[in-house]
């Protein structure tokens, strides 16, 4: 660059360089986001538009007939079907129970690991292992653990006096709880991780001031710890709520929706509708209903997320 001999030439050269650079900034922006945008359009927007169309038709992917326009019939069918509300109720119960338990357990774990001790980083990482595992593999080995005759779950709780022959996955009320137990096992560490981050960010002087004022431990927890951790806890809860609502892998691996339809979450029902009955039109309609619910929930989530980013 410094090889040009005359100063005027250099000025001109610099000017064109600047011009070129400014032009290329816009070009680079386009170039850089292009692959992402194209992939989004091809893999998300187009398929979603296509399935919106299909949701108004009667169509089966395995039949050799073109889609037949039926208007809102699929939606009406689904929304007036009592079974549909059953699936939403199951999903809601599942989400509520597992997220509530995860919050409590995760918070407890975080409080335990809050003060560093020798080996605490190792313990923390060990506790985090479950959430990194493949849910379907997790479901499979919990199925072995839950086995009524030879599973270790019954064996271990046998010591507490509970009937040691409980068929956790075969009982229509217990099956959902069994899935909740596995979900809590897997995802409490997630809540713990976020709460730990929140705890480490609380300025120590708040506690010092409280100690000087002789505030009780409970008071400190309620008035300092809890409010300070709240934003991160909220994110953890929203994150887990969305995930619980989507839940497919664990339920599919543990119970497959059974016994009967006791653990048939919306995702499982949708899967059966689309890939079991091959009722593609109706499945698309149900998918759209789920979509609307999820978008509503994730909007909430994004807002909380942005607040946390700014704060």
């Amino acid at each position: 660059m410094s090889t040009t001999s005359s100063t005027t030439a250099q000025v001109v050269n610099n000017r064109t360089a600047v011009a070129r650079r400014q032009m290329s900034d816009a070009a680079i922006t386009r170039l850089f986001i292009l692959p992402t945008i194209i992939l989004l359009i091809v893999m998300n927007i187009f398929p979603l538009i296509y399935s919106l169309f299909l949701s108004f038709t009667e169509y089966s992917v395995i039949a050799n007939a073109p889609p037949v326009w039926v208007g809102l019939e699929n939606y009406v069918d689904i929304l007036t079907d009592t079974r549909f509300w059953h699936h939403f109720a199951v999903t809601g119960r599942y989400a509520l129970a597992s997220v509530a338990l995860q919050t409590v357990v995760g918070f407890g774990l975080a409080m335990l690991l809050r003060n560093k001790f020798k080996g605490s980083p190792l313990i923390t990482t060990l506790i985090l292992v479950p959430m990194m595992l493949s849910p379907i593999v997790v479901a499979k080995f919990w199925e072995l653990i839950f086995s009524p005759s030879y599973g270790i779950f019954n064996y271990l709780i046998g010591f507490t006096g509970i009937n040691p022959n409980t068929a956790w996955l075969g009982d229509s009320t217990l099956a959902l709880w069994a899935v909740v137990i596995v979900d809590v096992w897997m995802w409490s560490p997630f809540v713990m991780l976020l709460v730990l981050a929140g705890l480490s960010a609380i300025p120590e002087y708040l506690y010092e001031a409280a100690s000087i004022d002789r505030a009780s431990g409970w008071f400190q927890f309620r008035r300092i710890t809890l409010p300070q951790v709240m934003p991160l806890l909220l994110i953890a809860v929203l994150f887990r709520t969305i995930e619980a609502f989507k839940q497919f892998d664990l339920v599919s691996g543990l119970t497959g929706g059974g016994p009967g339809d006791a653990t048939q979450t919306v995702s499982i029902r949708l899967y059966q509708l689309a890939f079991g009955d091959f009722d593609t039109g109706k499945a698309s309609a149900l998918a759209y209903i789920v979509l609307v619910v999820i978008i509503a929930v994730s909007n909430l989530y994004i807002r909380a997320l942005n607040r946390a980013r700014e704060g």
Partner: protein
Amino acid sequence: MATVTSSPAPPTSNQPGYYVNYSTRVDKVGLRPRIATMVRAIIAVIIAFIMLIPVFWMGLTAFKSRPDAVSVPPTLLFQPTLEGFVSLLTDRRQLTAAELQEYQARDDLNWADELTLLRGQVIIGQSQFPRQLLNSLIISAASTFFSVTFGVLAAYAFSRFQIPGKDDLLFFILSQRMLPAVVVTIPIFLMYKEIGLHDTHFGMILLYTSFNLSFSVWLLKGFIDEIPREYEEAALVDGYTRLQAFRKVVLPQAVTGIAATTVFALIFSWNEYAFALMLTSNNARTAPPSIPEVLGTGGIEWAAIAAGSLAFLIPVVIVTFALRKHLLRGVTFGAIRKG
């Protein structure tokens, strides 16, 4: 020209979210708090132990024989055997009594043959599992490569330039991750059937790339946001073009972020089950949907399932330890950072 830049990263204490504890709490010096910490440590260790029982149990089961795997009461002490791994990796056939005697008389059998012979079976070939594991590897690696590459580019553009409707676009990108897999899969399934991508490696790579892209754009944007703009501006003043500045200044600074994103994307596609279940059947089937299908003649082959799970989980556990500093950031899409 020479003044540009491999200047060291700024001290971490400048980063947001980093807190230095300048004070020592008076009440921590006493005996009671020390005992409290010790009690908490002990409880934490016990809980960690309890939480790992399922993983530990699966690890044990992988080395159990068929009767040991389903023994009542469950047994901790047993003769370890590789039977589960052999069942996982081979296809076998039950022998008749006459055949069994004939086979037992032979002396050209290797240890795996001997092992299956104990169950009255003979190995008739390799199972699908090694191929499915290879499929998992190919699809995860390729999709990770593409999603991180495209992700870095998009993240840089989103981080540094004015893009109309940027926030909406970013939200839209993230929202792809919020949808249940089944919802996304129905139209993709139809599209793939139509254009012949169903059950192909390319189809799965394409899907996982777009699935991971939303994650990598968000995570990488967070990392790139943290690189001071001044570095590039200095490079631009020194006559670098934007592309050169990106390559020689931004990328080296973002290496940690890129590495963390890569590993997360790898884990996501490695673990993914729902898409693979619905969009592959034979040719491109990955390991996760196959593990539940390892069924033996007469009852579930728990040892084989456990062996498959173990082979599948070990890389993830190792990676979890390698990633532990970035876990928080990764699982929250880069929303929350710690110093």
